């Protein structure tokens, strides 16, 4: 690798260390805050340096990629490999950018092996992006899933030339692409099952195996069976045909037997994941009824050791409750008798996450928790869903938590000012209009504004690599992807009682007031009863972004006064003129400025306290 590449990788890792150093370690709050500020400055310096490295080192190479020699290409490839691999995810965006350029080059040179290889890696990059969209409806994430699948499909189509291709690496890429065609979400489980089945047929073909005996065929086949077994996890009973069930059953059995062999003679138990697949397929085959399956699931969850933080235990502690909720969501009539258990299991999950050492660094834990946040069932006595989401923010995305707190605090103050001038300003919102007592309304609106601030960016939890682990400014494609946080946020908040009033705010806070720009397209300001609050949060969010939060990944940096001036300049277009008119009042602007500063400090204090509490709960 070139020196700039080595330095870039080292910087990324260093940034990751700074952002991970969030837990106070016996120091006072003031000391802690100072450290946070220092770390942020360090990150900013690293980010700037990384951009210099890319500008001076990488971009000229990409610019002249047609001139690049074998050595350059090899180094680019090695660099990309460091950025995303099975063990580490350092910079997926850059990984995709490099492989996109290499694919273009291979296409221009009509280099078949190069095309196949680069299609495979491009597909892997897209697959990583798709994983970040867990929880979104397929219609919203379809673009990325399709791109991934098209890459693998084109590479897999070269199977026809298996005999002509002599190097085993390229042959391996073709087979791996074939197996990967079934990754990601499908419109129906049958489609996924059909795709895995087709891959399995080819992978099990002895003729192919004879042609390239050096390839790890058994591993490919076993992984395809795992894919097939995994398809049960999200399949609804009614959408699986008997043929589908048969295919899945066979794969589950193979995986189960394999796992049994693995633990034979050891003191280990059969992995939870395997046991769950086995129980589930028994249910799908009609060998067990739903109550039976749910009871077995409860036993599996109860048997999981809450002091064990291995991936298997994480699966048992968090992923199984997610599936448990999914079944109850499908059959709500079963909820009543299992409500108490469900409420208990949430508390268990909460304790587990809080006791988890270095929880923020654990990708799997975070992935499982996002799964649970998607299927979460809120009952009268369960943890409120909004508390669950807040826990995720504090544990995994403190930057988002801090930003949300700042926006909430500023919005709260701004709403106090608005309510003093115009008590009916928010009366388009049904539940606000219904508050008859003026004093109560004056108290409730700012409180609601604070809550909206706290949850408006909850969708960013899915895009942590963009927002939280920033190692450079965004590329255009990443900017586009980041837009989806509004839809993810809405989908997380809309269905539960404790969060439904924040959903439209999460959805619409980046939409322009005059509708000419912004996102998402599906937000219709004038049809939204919450629009005045959406406007308030949109303005506060923007003010904090340009003055503090977003400067790392967008490269915009303004003082508060400059930001207010810029907001006024966008009056009637980006922002509601009713709000910007208030900003013109210097007293209001000063009060807001103070609220931002107060919010900033308070947010970190709360983090400090929360981490302090969590530290006490950590196992010895």
């Amino acid at each position, binding site marked *: 690798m070139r020196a700039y590449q080595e330095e870039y990788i080292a910087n990324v890792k260093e940034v990751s260390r700074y952002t991970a150093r969030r837990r106070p370690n016996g120091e006072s709050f003031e000391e802690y805050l100072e450290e946070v500020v220092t770390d942020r400055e360090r990150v900013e310096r690293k980010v700037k340096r990384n*951009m210099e490295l890319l*500008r001076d080192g990488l*971009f*000229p190479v*990409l*610019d*002249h*990629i*047609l*001139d690049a020699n074998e050595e350059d290409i090899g180094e680019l490839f090695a660099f990309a490999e460091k950025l995303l691999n099975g063990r580490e995810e350092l910079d997926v965006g850059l990984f995709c*950018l490099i492989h996109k*350029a290499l*694919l*273009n080059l291979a*296409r221009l040179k009509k280099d*078949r092996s190069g095309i196949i290889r680069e299609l495979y890696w491009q597909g892997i990059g897209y697959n990583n992006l798709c994983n970040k969209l867990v929880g979104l409806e397929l219609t919203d994430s*379809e*673009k990325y899933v*399709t*791109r991934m*699948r*098209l*890459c693998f*499909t*084109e590479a*897999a*189509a*070269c199977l*026809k*030339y298996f005999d002509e291709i002599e190097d085993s690496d390229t042959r391996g890429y073709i087979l791996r692409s074939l197996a990967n*065609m079934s990754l990601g979400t499908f*419109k129906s489980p049958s*489609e996924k099952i059909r795709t895995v089945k087709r891959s399995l047929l080819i992978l099990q073909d002895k003729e192919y195996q004879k042609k390239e005996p050096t390839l790890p065929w058994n591993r490919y086949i076993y992984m395809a069976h795992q894919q097939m077994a995994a398809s049960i996890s999200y399949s609804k009973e009614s959408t699986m045909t008997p043929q589908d069930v048969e295919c899945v059953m066979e794969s589950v059995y193979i995986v189960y037997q394999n796992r049994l062999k693995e633990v034979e003679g050891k003191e280990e138990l059969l992995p939870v994941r395997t046991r769950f697949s086995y129980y589930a397929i028994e249910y799908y085959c009609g060998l067990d009824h739903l109550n039976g399956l749910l009871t077995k699931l409860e036993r599996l969850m109860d048997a999981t050791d809450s002091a064990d933080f291995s991936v298997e235990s994480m699966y048992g502690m968090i992923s199984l409750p997610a599936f448990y909720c999914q079944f109850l969501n499908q059959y709500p009539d079963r909820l009543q008798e299992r409500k108490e258990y469900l409420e208990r299991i949430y508390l268990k999950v909460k304790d587990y996450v809080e006791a988890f050492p270095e929880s923020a660094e654990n990708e799997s834990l975070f992935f499982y928790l996002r799964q649970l946040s998607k299927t979460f069932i809120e009952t009268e006595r369960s943890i409120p869903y909004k508390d669950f989401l807040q826990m995720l923010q504090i544990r995994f995305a403190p930057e988002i938590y801090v930003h949300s707190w700042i926006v909430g605090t500023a919005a709260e103050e701004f709403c106090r000012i608005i309510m003093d001038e115009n008590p009916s300003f928010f009366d388009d919102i049904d539940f606000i209009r219904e508050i008859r007592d003026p004093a109560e309304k004056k108290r409730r609106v700012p409180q609601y504004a604070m809550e909206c601030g706290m949850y408006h960016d909850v969708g960013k939890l899915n895009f942590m690599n963009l927002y939280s682990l920033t190692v*450079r*400014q*965004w*590329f*255009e494609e990443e*900017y586009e992807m980041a837009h989806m946080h509004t839809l993810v946020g809405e989908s997380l908040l809309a269905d539960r009682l404790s969060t439904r009033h924040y959903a439209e705010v999460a959805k619409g806070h980046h939409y322009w*007031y*005059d*509708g000419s720009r912004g996102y998402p397209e599906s937000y219709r*300001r*004038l049809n939204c009863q919450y629009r005045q609050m959406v406007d308030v949060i949109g303005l506060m969010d923007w003010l904090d972004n340009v003055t503090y939060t977003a400067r790392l*990944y*967008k*490269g*915009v940096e303004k003082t508060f006064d400059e930001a207010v001036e810029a907001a006024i300049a966008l009056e*009637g*277009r980006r922002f*509601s*003129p*009713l709000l910007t008119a208030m900003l013109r009042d210097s007293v209001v602007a000063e009060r807001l400025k103070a609220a931002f500063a107060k919010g900033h400090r308070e947010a970190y204090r709360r983090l400090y306290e929360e981490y302090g509490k969590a530290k006490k709960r950590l196992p010895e």
Partner: protein
Amino acid sequence: MEMEKREKEDRLAKTGYVVFEKEGIDFGRILYADDGACELAGLKREEPDLTALLKAAESLDTDRVTLDRGHELWILNTAGSRQMRLAELERVNAALEDALKAAEEANQAKSSFLSNMSHDIRTPMNAIMGMTAIGLAHIDEKSRVQDCLQKIKTASAHLMSLVNDVLDMSRIDSGRLTLNEEVFSLADLIHDIAVIMRPQAALKNQKFHIEIGQIYEESLMGDPLRLRQILVNIIGNAVKYTLEGGEINVCFKQNLTNGVSSEEQNTVRVDFVCTDNGIGMSREFLKRIFIPFERVNNSTISKIEGTGLGMSIVKNLVDRMGGNIDVESEEGVGSSFHVEIPLGVAPLSRNGRALPAGQTILVAESLDERAVMIMRFLKEGGLVPVQKKTGLETVTWLTEEQFEDRMPCAMLLGQKLPDMPVLELAAHVRQLAGPEFPILLVSEEDWAQIEFRAARAGVNAFVPCPLFQSRLLETLSELIARTGEGGEASSDFHTDYSSYRILLVEDIELNQEIVVEMLSVTGVQVEVADNGAKAVEMFEASPEGHFDLIFMDIQMPVMNGYEATEKIRSLSRKDAQTVWIVAMTANAFVEDIRLSREAGMNEHCSKPIDPDRLQEILRGRFK
């Protein structure tokens, strides 16, 4: 016998009439007497003695009919004619009653029309006035004002259509309506109708389907405006009287005159059927459907607006065109309108070039009905179509064909694929097959709505649905011909930019060559500067308006792209501010895009340069 006897009596019988004016209770005088009365009284017709006539009349068999308080009509008869007179009177009375009833009904319809019209006119007028007031009250809230203006626009359009209907009816009534006779394209007509009606149906979540049956002649003679009026009226009613989520099916075909071959036809009968599953009509109403000022009243469909003149106008127009219109309907089930109109055949002027006979063409379409039609059209055009029903099958097949050097001459992308959005497939195929591979989209969507996304995905041309063979083959042949001639295929058809001049600022020779090569196919004139300072120099030295566009690299020796742009923008010549400058760089950060904007550049194009992106920029600037 009875008849003869009556006729004889009629001939013998004599009748006379006088008008008697009362004076007091028992007195009066004759005001008028006809010839018959004078003859019966034996008096001279020229100067009758009215006193004598009165006496004579009083002695005759007389029927008295009160005309008003002061006047009576006396019918004087000779004996024996009474039966006949009574019968005649009854006949006259019946006729009078019918006439009165008709007049009352007409009056009733006109009153109801006036009442409806005043309501119908008032409704949009209220909206216009109300929305204007709201807009004025919130003049600072741009989005609110926009919303008001949008509503005012809708209400005005509705008001206009009311006025037009009334004017049309008045023209028809007074016989002033004339029909034009001009050449028109049936394909264009149907496409226009689809563009007008689809959004209206979509607003009510209705399934709207247009099917094209056997079409012999697409170029016809007639009055396309009035034809459009007929069709839009009928389909508009179907949309109006069908509930949310309902279904409307429209079918067009042509019938030939019996015994004449399609080549010898001077006229064809255009057959149009519109069927819906809406609220339907009662038998009673069906009888009155073409009477002016009638419309269905139904509580399920509220707020139906209209004059009630539409169907009457349609009937009149169809009659004037020598056609027929039939309606079948059942309440709660739906309606079906069937119109058949004879139209003259115009000579078809086909400008397209011949298709490469025998070449393979890929059709990616999952809708069987549509695919069958596309395949038939293509086969008839001499091509060999291969259909793929999913995106993944398409890519697999294309990859194999590419490696075996058997690429199809084009890809025709249909409306729907089960496994992916069609434009995602287009984008991937564009990368896979290269910039010159023709990709044609056949879609029901309005091209104006999807053009930007489609062109960005790499689609070269568009054929709207409902699909017509001539249009499909012409578009295809033109697209393939351009590719065959070495012309670029990645833009729309009219990309001759030879009158435009571009300044390419790029320091690397190889990159210069690539971009010049990409641009050359459009005919655009390219001048090259190899650093920023040279670019400023060339711009300054050129006459005003010389360059239409500048492609500016960023990292260059001597002077970088930002600085060069700032220098150009600061020049004191008119075009320094207006010339379009596009940043061309591998620097892909959002900040780079912002910096290039701040330096005065208008657009950003990432490296390595994508030919489609280049075309998109040219299209955007030079259209």
